[in-house]
């Protein structure tokens, strides 16, 4: 009796959603064990470390043995000026890069979907840096941004502007790296926006034109609202990337001068190198909380609005 009801119960639950293909000997054509290899790797090397990081962030730890020290690591994280700087810099970096990518990506996409010459060339050349290695880009721009001999300052001097000392100036270091990040990543934002703009029906623009709307008006009233999914994607993607960013900063400033351009990801590495594994893990937990606390609500907000429209 029980043997009979069990299979029908599962069948009933599944039938309303999809009609399963004919089963042989009660086996699905889509076996769960297909999940297994991926699930094992993902669990062992991603889920387990993520979960245990919460525990080890409360310890002093050398990989073999640990002493439980409560919230000391976090207290240290929010007290030491070098570490607090890393925290605020992470926010600045994430916000600056994603705002610039949204604005520039949108403008470039509008330009590249309009009737100008050499669109193919412009798209390719703009997208290519996305595929370059961050370390390579970082080193090239370190040379370009050299305060005395660098090409950027020589170019600025040629038109009568005294350029800043870029990476060696504490006030500019973080911003300089963020600008290079934008240089490298704006192509991706542009391409996403182009996909968004191309999917807007052309009739809307024609109708607006018939009604005498200027191109400014149709940009603000048609392109901008209808490209909203693209905007959501660009914001979310560049925030996730920006808040976690490590490669470029490490290649260009290593957090310097002093610790003025440190971000959480570089703090994590420095503490790891110094052997403070507990503190490094606490940094990871802080980064985890920041990223989820910002990205999750934001993506829910951006996507809900999209559905309402």
């Amino acid at each position: 009796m029980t043997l009979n009801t069990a299979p029908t119960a599962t069948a009933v639950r599944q039938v309303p959603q999809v009609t399963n293909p004919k089963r042989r000997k009660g086996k699905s054509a889509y076996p769960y064990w297909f999940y297994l290899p991926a699930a094992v790797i993902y669990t062992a090397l991603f889920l387990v470390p993520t979960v245990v990081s919460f525990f080890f962030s409360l310890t002093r730890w050398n990989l073999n043995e640990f002493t439980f020290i409560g919230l000391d690591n976090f207290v240290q994280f929010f007290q030491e000026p070098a570490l607090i700087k890393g925290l605020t810099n992470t926010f600045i970096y994430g916000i600056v890069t994603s705002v610039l990518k949204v604005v520039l990506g949108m403008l470039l996409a509008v330009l590249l979907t309009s009737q100008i010459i050499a669109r193919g060339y412009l798209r390719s050349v703009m997208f290519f840096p996305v595929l370059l290695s961050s370390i390579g880009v970082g080193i090239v721009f370190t040379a370009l941004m050299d305060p005395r001999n660098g090409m950027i300052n020589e170019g600025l001097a040629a038109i009568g502007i005294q350029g800043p000392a870029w990476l060696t100036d504490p006030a500019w270091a973080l911003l300089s790296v963020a600008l290079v990040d934008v240089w490298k990543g704006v192509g991706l934002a542009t391409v996403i926006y182009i996909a968004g703009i191309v999917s807007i029906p052309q009739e809307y623009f024609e109708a607006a034109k018939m009604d005498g709307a200027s191109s400014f008006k149709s940009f603000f009233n048609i392109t901008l609202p209808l490209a909203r999914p693209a905007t959501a994607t660009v914001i979310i993607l560049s925030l996730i990337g920006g808040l976690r960013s490590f490669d470029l900063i490490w290649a260009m400033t290593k957090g310097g001068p002093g610790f003025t351009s440190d971000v959480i990801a570089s703090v994590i590495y420095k503490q790891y190198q110094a052997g403070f594994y507990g503190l490094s893990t606490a940094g990871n937990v802080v980064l985890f909380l920041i990223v989820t606390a910002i990205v999750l609500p934001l993506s829910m907000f951006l996507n809900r609005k999209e559905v309402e429209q």
Partner: protein
Amino acid sequence: MTTALKRYGLGVLAIAVSIIVFIIPLLFMVLTAVKDRKEAAKLDFAWPTNFQFVENFTAVLSARKFMLVTAFINSTILTVVSVTILVILAAMVAWVLQRRKSRWNGVANFLILSGLIIPPAIVPTIWVLQGMGLFKTLPGLILIEVAFGLSFCVMLFRAFIASIPKELDEAAVIDGCGPVRLFFRVIFPLLRSVIVTVIVVQSVHIFNDFQNPLYFLPGDANATVQLTLFNFQSQFTTNYNLLFMNILLITVPPFIMYLFFNRQIVAGMTAGAVKG
């Protein structure tokens, strides 16, 4: 008249700006890579007076006991093996996830989203790898790349699989096809175009990866190409020409990928992005 002016005027302006912003830095990199040491140190945008392509090329390759050659081999193995594993495992997951609706779907979707958002916890991952005896080994790093890349690949595959009609599976099952045969003989070949996208996007990504090799595969003998750059950065502070030659060499593989698979790369990156 005005539209023509706009078409050409804006176009010419855009080309000029693109040359200054994008072409010159890339050209600067190439030119510096073929200069001699003294000229390279000036960091200026001048035509090299004597080309040293071959000298710089051999100097970079032979530096530190041919470390760059080892690194290229390591990076190739890393990229090829992890992308292969990724493609097969992610396609399997995506297929079952898309076809079989069950209470696990919510959990799986949540885990996929987590994989896209959560920054990996570094030291605990090292702890796990050490427990498995895989820390500082290439297989360990391969598994890491697989674990961190799964979410993105599953998403791409799932979106594509949704467009394959279910009737196809049903026909195969009626003909007596088991799940394994159904997947590998019927479904997998149909995924060709999305597989190409996944391969191209992930191989560029893994080849360019710096952070994971830095943490999980330290040591000169195991260096990947991105790490050679990092190691040479301190050693070559005065030899910009060699440093830039190194950059140039490790830029070649992604560049070739871009030449041949431009469309797949863009499609993969935007498609994955729109779903995320």
